[in-house]
């Protein structure tokens, strides 16, 4: 049976899981918060499974992104265009 304190830690952790996974510079957790999340994950199977699932999903989505890279021909055309645009104007 989950006690109230554990349930509250679960809820607190759940609100920070995405930040914990992403470690994005715009929304970094403090060192204290990271330690608290890690401690909770070590004792909570539900939250640790969530983290594992989210990591799998992110990895898979990134795989699709990596395999959907623009083709070189288009990139090369844009590089040529970039060079045309970024020409110093001659007086």
């Amino acid at each position, binding site marked *: 049976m989950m006690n109230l304190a554990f349930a509250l830690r679960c809820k607190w952790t759940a609100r920070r899981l*995405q*930040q914990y996974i*992403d470690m*994005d*510079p*715009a*929304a970094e957790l403090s060192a204290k918060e990271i330690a608290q999340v890690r401690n909770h994950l070590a004792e909570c199977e539900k939250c640790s499974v*969530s983290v*594992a*699932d*989210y*990591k*799998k*999903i*992110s*990895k*898979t*989505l*990134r*795989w*699709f*992104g*990596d*395999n*959907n*890279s*623009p*083709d070189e021909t*288009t*990139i090369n*055309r*844009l*590089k040529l*265009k*970039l*060079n045309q*645009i*970024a*020409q*110093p*104007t*001659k*007086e």
Partner: protein
Amino acid sequence: MEAMESETEQANRAAAFREIVEPELPVLLRVARGLTRSGADAEDLVQETLIRAFRAILKFDGAHPRAWLLTILRNTNINMNRRTRPSLFIDGTFWEDATPAFGDDRRLSAEETAIDKSMSAEIQKGFKDLDPRFREVLYLVDIQGLNYSECAAALGVPVGTVMSRLSRGRKRLREHLVKTSALEGISK
């Protein structure tokens, strides 16, 4: 002499612009593809973005070039499509372009090869069924690898909104994958 200095400054500015922008071309093109749903339109949008960015380069502070370019891309798209297509974004059809041919020059890791076809189908379905506001954030952050600030710039929303939509979108995608047991097909 003054004209010579001016030319030198212009040359330096042009070189700096190329240096800043060239590494971002693939990201710009991918995001533009999500915005326009068309390869040709995406290329036009990126070209117009480059023209506007070059005009605005003197106002750029040098920090976060990707976010700066994505902001220009978003505004350019709004301006270009105001009359014809007021509201467009990721509809999930980009999956159809995820062909192996695009990845010919890279080796797949063991984890990547563990992604099986049934899971792939479910994750695509779950992604397409998401609310468009969640889908576009997942597309930009999880698929295209933008950080929160870059995604916020591309969408014109605060970082907090990106975080909230990302969290809810991932949660719903996970619920779909758990329900269909598709997550079991992915290695950790």
